């Protein structure tokens, strides 16, 4: 008998996330691909001192209205509630927006530490974490603040810096469809960081638009194999 991965609610799925946990959150950072229902459940849970690993820190509901009519929910809610101690990502705050996102305000007050990582380096560090590798050498960041404190190496005629893997206690991700085993397929640009994060966390929790019995996903089109997924919640779009 297969383990039952299907949870009744997002609140149940995130219930054991603990104070001080490291949590990856998938998607690009705005809409499409962000597991907004799991983020809302994590904010209701109220745990604190989280380290968040995500592409963007979110803009919060007020600023999001400038990006999409009516606005949208993102990671801003976790910063507003003071649940985050450290953020690791490529766009903590958007330079094209006023400096009033929840993350930027919290950072200014000294309440949130940030580690800024180039987006491709972020993806690859997570892939290394999920794939059991000790890191990689990249030319990205050479000659910039990103190289500070990192090992440098010349390979061929090019200079590289060493980047180390990232893992997490939990990954919150979004997919379009799952089967009961946890095989996942995505929709459009809502894929992004979700597949790489699925492999890099101790417990991977996915919210999906639709849950189907095993056998109904074409095995040729499965993007995330089920062994990377621990918990599944079906949410209405």
């Amino acid at each position, binding site marked *: 008998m297969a383990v039952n991965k299907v949870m009744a609610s997002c609140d149940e799925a995130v219930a054991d996330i603990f104070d001080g946990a490291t949590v990856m959150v998938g998607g690009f950072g705005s809409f499409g691909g962000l597991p907004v229902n799991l983020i809302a459940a994590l904010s209701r849970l109220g745990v604190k001192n989280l380290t968040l690993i995500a592409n963007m820190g979110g803009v919060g509901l007020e600023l999001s209205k400038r990006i999409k009519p009516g606005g949208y929910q993102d990671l801003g809610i976790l910063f507003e509630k003071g649940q985050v101690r450290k953020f690791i990502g490529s766009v903590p*705050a958007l330079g094209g927006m006023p400096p009033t996102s929840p993350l930027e305000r919290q950072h200014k007050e000294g309440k949130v530490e940030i580690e800024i990582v180039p987006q491709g*380096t972020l*993806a690859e560090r997570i892939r290394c974490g999920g794939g059991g590798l000790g890191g990689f050498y990249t030319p990205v960041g050479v000659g910039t603040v990103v190289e500070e404190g990192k090992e440098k190496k010349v390979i061929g005629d090019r200079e590289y810096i060493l980047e180390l893997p990232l893992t997490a206690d939990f990954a919150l991700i979004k997919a379009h469809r799952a089967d009961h085993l946890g095989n996942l397929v995505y929709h459009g640009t809502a894929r992004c960081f979700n597949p790489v994060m699925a492999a890099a966390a101790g417990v991977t929790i996915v919210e999906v638009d639709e849950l189907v019995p095993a056998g109904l996903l074409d095995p040729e089109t499965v993007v995330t194999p089920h062994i990377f997924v621990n918990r599944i919640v079906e949410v209405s779009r």
Partner: protein
Amino acid sequence: MKARLDESTIALRAAREFPDGAVVNLGYGMPGLCANLVPGGRAVYFQSENGMLGYGNLAADEAKDYEMINASDQPVVALPGMCFFDSAASFDMIRGGHIDIVVLGAYQVSEKGDLANWGRPGRPATGMGGGMDLAVGAKRVIVTMLHTTKKGEPRVVKRCTYPITARHCVSLIVTDLAVIEVTGEGLVLREIAPGWTPAEVQDLTEARLMPADDLTEVTL
């Protein structure tokens, strides 16, 4: 005040650089306008860092799908033959030299082609997104930007004072006043906005510009 080119015209001029069959990535902001401005008769494959290749125009209001967005969070139109992939594969394309042209915005470009486009004083929490990967990995980097800041300070400078994105990476700078090529000998002024003289553009440029022998008005 003399007229300067508007953002759409800058993007239109940048898009003229896209050869038929090119794989092109468009950065955050003004570069995104290029998606709608590809010269007629040319097929261009737009790659978006969030995991999409071969998308079309920016979507009209009635056709917006928020799971079909470019890297500027703008919904775009699907085209036959397009495909999706995850962020790791997307940046394999970008770092691995599989992108022919990237168009990026900038705060400053130096005379050596150094790019500064992600951080500025007083905003320590802004990030570079995919900008560093793109500036390092794309075969050709085109910058679109306004020639001066709101206060009138030059953005084409001898040395960047803002945080660097990547060094020696920019090939061409398209501004509201000029088209400038970065060469081993320095910055060559190729084209100039209608009604402006090379001396007037130089006055608004910190780095030295070398007017090309065949200098023309900006051609679209």
